[in-house]
């Protein structure tokens, strides 16, 4: 019975949606069933897969590029105090610039296309990841670093055997949050800067003939993929060598 409660919640929400559409007699906002049909229509036209792949492709590239650069960069800043002093204030100023504010520059440098979107997602993930890695290095217990050096580890060994495993739990949480932001940004970027993907689908469906059923279908797809990405990242957090964490100690 307890297992069913969550489904009940979703069912109630969908039912309330249906009721609201029927009762207000709106023509613009589609009913749940119309939204499902719209997803079917997208699948038939072959756009469903194409748009999903386009969005995921951009997120994957931008996000992994950011991981690849931000984590070593953040660790370097975390272990090298002078470097941090020099660079951190600049990161703090650049970080709150909405990645979307970079759109004009992205288009200027990379043109209208995938590369611009990838660049924006890269920016959106790079700063939070850098800060997370840096902060995580600060949070390492001195005892663990001391123990590592006591057993005769060289600096590269210390990095691999103490620093990396010690920051992993915080890093994985930061990675999940950054992926959430990246997913938010890809939709916005696609609404403005490119001609494919789920964000484009939403804008296009509205502009080309007020197809609000397609708009809502797009929203559902964005939500569903977001949930899946979040669940995948949460799975990472339950791995044995990640599940500890200084907070829970």
């Amino acid at each position, binding site marked *: 019975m307890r297992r069913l409660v969550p489904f009940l919640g979703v069912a109630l929400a969908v039912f309330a949606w249906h009721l609201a559409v029927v009762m207000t007699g709106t023509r*613009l906002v589609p009913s749940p069933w119309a939204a499902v049909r719209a997803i079917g229509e997208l699948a038939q036209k072959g756009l469903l897969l194409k748009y999903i792949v386009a969005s995921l492709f951009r997120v994957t590239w931008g996000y992994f590029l950011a991981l690849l650069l931000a984590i070593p960069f953040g660790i370097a800043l975390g272990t090298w105090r*002078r470097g941090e002093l020099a660079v951190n204030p600049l990161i703090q100023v650049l970080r709150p610039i909405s990645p979307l504010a970079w759109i004009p520059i992205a288009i200027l440098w990379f043109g209208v296309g995938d590369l611009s979107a990838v660049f924006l997602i890269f920016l959106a993930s790079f700063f939070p990841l850098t800060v997370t890695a840096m902060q995580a290095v600060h949070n390492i217990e001195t005892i663990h670093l001391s123990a590592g050096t006591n057993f005769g580890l060289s600096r590269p060994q210390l990095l691999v055997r103490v620093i990396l495993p010690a920051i992993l739990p915080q890093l994985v949480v930061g990675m999940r949050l950054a992926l959430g932001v990246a997913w938010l940004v890809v939709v*916005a970027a696609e609404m403005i800067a490119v001609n494919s993907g789920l964000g484009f689908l939403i804008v296009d469906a509205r502009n080309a003939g007020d197809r609000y059923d397609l708009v809502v279908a797009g929203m559902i797809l964005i939500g569903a993929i977001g949930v899946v990405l979040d669940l995948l990242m949460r799975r990472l957090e339950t791995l044995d060598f990640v599940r500890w964490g200084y907070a829970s100690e």
Partner: protein
Amino acid sequence: MKSVERYLLPVLTAMVLIALWHLAVIATGTNIFPSPAAVAKGIFHLAEKSLLWSYIGDSIMRVVFGYGAAVILGIPLGILLGWYPALGRLVNPVIQMLRPISPLAWMPLAVIWFGVSNVAPIFLIFLASLFPLLVAAMDGVRNVPPMFLQAGRNFGLSVPQLMRRVVFPAILPRLLVGLRIAFGIAWLVLVAAEMIAVDSGLGYLIIDSRNAGKRYDLVVGGMLLIGIIGLAFDTMFRRAERLARAE
């Protein structure tokens, strides 16, 4: 010596970066991308015309209303959902499904419901901040150590007293972190919303400067302003967190 480094090093890095930027503009001979001096001049120019101030005012007004509404609604609702676990189980899946929908994806619906007006971007900012706040408050209440609640009941507190004197102080640190994170997202969404849905504000300044005459000096100026104002808010939130922890 150490404290001198603390101020000198960032200034030095900033100077090096600005010099590199300047050199890059000269070396590439670009006519479009502005030099640092051009950006400074652009900002100054805008500030003189007072347009800048009204844009900043508009942006902050939108964020304050959207975010404020989310705080007023989201936190009590989150506390309620955390306090009654059965209710939480019922509603949480709906929240989890709505949460990852990029707030910007609501834009077309927001425009049908509210027209092209200030309300549409405020609604988007409201949505963007609501879910993180709901989740922070709910998780906060669920994680209040049972010991605290027992102690509270032991001293004979009623439920409203328990809320005010035990639950709320106990979740405050976590709540403040949630407030800061939600604000960060709200700030990000604001800019995007202004780029699409309205014709004032810092987001609009950026997109308009580009579309109307490729004024990239104003684009970059607008970006810097967004960064600086965002940083100011972020610093405020962090200060509040530190105060709450010190108490």
